[in-house]
């Protein structure tokens, strides 16, 4: 099983790295968003409890955006594998379905966290000083977010027959999840309905954990009333549930 998981993981990474346009697109998008929104809203938005400015607030959100998009879209490979026939070959191999899920998820997590780390490296530029502990927490947050959204993407990819359907569904789901995660604007100041949606959004807790990490593990972080413990506990629980969901889904014939 280990060899199969490693083989699936390394294939995901190799195939991604060989697609230069995909690599460039995934890296350019958050940087572009960050620059446009950050500078665009710099003088219009103030974050309650912070005087650091919107560019600093937005950076963890862009790290989250990178994780979410890369994690989700990495599982598009499942749809492509079904169309190319590779998935058939995997399914008739003497491997448990959990190995298939684990291999694909590990590949997606590697890509998502790897790219998010590049965006996260801009932290000192906007005055964030995470320190070693903070970096480790931010990495953990990235991994938990990536596992959650890779697993979610896997479930969708397993059920949807075409790449177009996959893109359509993901665009509908992904943008609201990101926007309502506290990545773009804080919960404080949002309407009650939006604040409730943010609390119900599992990504909110991952983004919160990212803020704690990139902020250097402060007592509290600006823009969210969530504690570090709550962010960590919910993020771990959601990641585990998502993985179980993906494994359960994979037991069915796609």
């Amino acid at each position, binding site marked *: 099983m280990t060899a*199969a998981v490693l*083989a699936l993981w390394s*294939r995901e990474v190799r*195939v991604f790295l060989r697609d230069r346009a995909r690599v460039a697109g995934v890296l350019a998008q958050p940087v572009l968003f960050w620059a446009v929104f950050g500078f665009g809203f710099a003088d219009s938005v103030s974050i309650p409890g912070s005087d650091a400015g919107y560019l600093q607030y937005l950076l963890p959100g862009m790290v989250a955006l990178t994780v979410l998009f890369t994690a989700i879209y990495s599982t598009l490979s499942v749809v492509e594998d079904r169309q190319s026939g590779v998935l*058939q070959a995997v399914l*008739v*191999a003497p491997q448990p379905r959990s190995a298939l899920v684990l291999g694909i998820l590990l590949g997606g997590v590697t890509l998502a966290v790897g790219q998010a780390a590049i965006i996260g490296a801009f932290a000192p530029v906007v005055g964030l000083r995470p320190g070693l502990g903070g970096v480790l927490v931010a990495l953990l947050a990235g991994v938990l977010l990536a596992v959650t959204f890779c697993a979610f993407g896997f479930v969708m990819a397993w059920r949807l027959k075409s790449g177009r359907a996959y893109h359509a569904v993901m665009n509908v789901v992904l943008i609201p999840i990101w926007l309502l995660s506290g990545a773009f604007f804080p919960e404080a100041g949002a309407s009650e309905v939006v604040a409730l949606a943010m609390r119900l959004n599992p990504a909110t807790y991952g983004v919160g954990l990212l803020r704690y990490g990139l902020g250097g593990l402060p007592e509290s972080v600006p823009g969210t009333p969530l504690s570090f413990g709550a962010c960590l506990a919910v993020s771990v629980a959601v990641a585990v549930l998502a993985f179980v969901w993906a494994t359960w889904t994979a037991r069915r*014939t796609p």
Partner: protein
Amino acid sequence: MAEPVAALDARDLSHRFGPVRALAGVDLAVAPTERVALLGPNGSGKTTLLRIASTRLAPEAGRVAVAGHDVETEPDAVRRRVGVVFQSPALDGALTVREALRFQAALVRVPRAELSLRVDVALADAGLTDRASDRVGTLSGGLLRRLDLARGLLHRPALALLDEPTTGLDPLARDTFWSVLDRRRADGAQLIATHLMDEAARCDRVVILDRGRVVADGTPQALTAALGPDALWLEAEDPATLASALATEGLPGRAIGDRVLVQSPRARDLVADLYARPDVRGVSIQPPTLADVFAARVGQPPATP
């Protein structure tokens, strides 16, 4: 001495897709190292049978065992023993040829110590050693098929299931593909679904499926011999009417497509009289082929690839 366990043993196998009956009580056994061709028109149940034997589909009724392991209760054991070559190559175009085989080796649990040697041998076998570092996506159709065959047989399965593996290949590429397949005969049994009669003729046994049932099962020689010494085909304006007319005259004829097949041990003696009939436009007579067997058993000529 105990009998060797069959590579494939299907008993009373049935399956439906909604209202469509794909398999209706199929019995089929394939001996170890036997090569069996599975013929039949589109929709006859060939692919369904292969899907069930490879654990991709649970049968509705009946039992299938691969090398003694039940496909439903021991799927993992079955997957260790089958190698599948699909209608379209199951390969990732972004990997190199060697990477594609190493990926497969990991999936089918080739021991780490044997991995490099096994991949090298497979590459050499498929004539792809000099293309090992090229991306799969750059290979021609023929090379792609050979690589896919190497992929499917990498773990030396007890039963290789090949579903129309040469579709779309030119005759030269098909010949090369079969040479590779020939070299892997000793590994295990081969069950090959095909539309091509010359491919079926290269097998030890031919099984013809029609509407989910086995309508013929035997060696190519036995099946053709059963048609008689000659296959007599008549061309007619109205084949069905001609067949009926011949039947009233005590001559067994069957309208198949736009012709009538006459099965008679006296076929040669009948040629002149039949040719003289006004309702016959032409006569051809030759030793029977598998295409004639197919036509006689299925009631339609084999599909032209």
